[in-house]
């Protein structure tokens, strides 16, 4: 029974965030925006964590800046722009769609197309030899 309880508790536990009590803003709506923004910003020291997940002192400084900018009346876009101006696009966990990332964003579709095209050619070939016609004449696949 105890073991089951532990498992249930573990299943429903939400991940712990690094935000410390003294950082939290009084306005819940603003705090929610700060959390959402923080999840999209890279901790530049730890690199693979968001500043929301990181305990690094620099991540804390960045969380405080995010909140400060929001309190000062910045829009979400302005907060991102503020940090990008200092740390570059690298600070964004999700790369923006812009000329130097077009290939990055298009790559999955291109790979799917290439693989799909390859599979199509291969299957056509298999069908062709299965129908016993190897002389290169086009054979309509039977439907």
């Amino acid at each position, binding site marked *: 029974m105890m073991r089951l309880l532990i498992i249930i508790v573990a299943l429903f536990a939400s991940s712990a965030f690094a935000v410390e009590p003294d950082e939290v803003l009084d306005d819940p709506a603003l705090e929610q925006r700060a959390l959402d923004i923080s999840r999209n910003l890279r901790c*530049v*020291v730890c*690199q693979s964590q968001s500043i929301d997940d990181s305990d690094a*002192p*620099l991540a804390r*400084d*960045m969380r405080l*800046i995010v909140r400060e900018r929001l309190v000062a009346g910045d829009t979400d876009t302005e907060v991102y722009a503020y940090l*990008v*101006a*200092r*740390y*570059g696009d*690298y600070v964004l966990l999700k790369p923006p769609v812009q000329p130097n990332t077009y290939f990055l964003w298009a790559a999955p579709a291109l790979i799917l197309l*290439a693989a799909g095209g*390859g599979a199509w*050619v291969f299957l056509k*070939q298999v069908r062709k030899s299965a129908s016993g016609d190897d002389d290169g004449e086009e054979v309509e696949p039977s439907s």
Partner: protein
Amino acid sequence: MTRALLFAPLIAFAAIAAWFAVGLRQDPSRIPSVLIDQPLPTFTLPAIEGRDNPLSSEYVKGEVALINVFASWCIPCAIEHPVLMQIAEDEDILIAGINWKEKPGDGAAWLARLGDPYDFIGDDADGRVAIDFGVTGAPETFVVDRKGRIRLKQVGPITEQIWEQDIRPVVRRLQAEE
């Protein structure tokens, strides 16, 4: 034609493997700074406790300068320190320090022990100015030209070799500029 297609996956694999072979050799901690060729952030920092030479972005205008982010708690900074001392002695260059996230008094005590290469030292206790510089860790050093633009960023300690090969030539070039 179809025979050539047989080799397409192999060629694609070779291309991807070559790409990764290059990519995986790169140091992921090297992040190009967006501040290169940008004007220095405008800031004013108080002097550190025990010193009376505060740092403002105005003080480095008109001179080729090194702006060095350091702290007594930073181990690589202690490795870099003798090189900075040597630069201060040998070169006609302004060296400014940003004492990053330091407890009051610690910076001055550290400099009293190891020597002080800095013309100006700003106390960046809350790390705000360091963020304006896009600092990710100490030490970091920025080379600023006479017009107050950042021209080079060194992440990690300046070793003698890095100074001679990478930084000094840039400094010389900037000093020769009008």
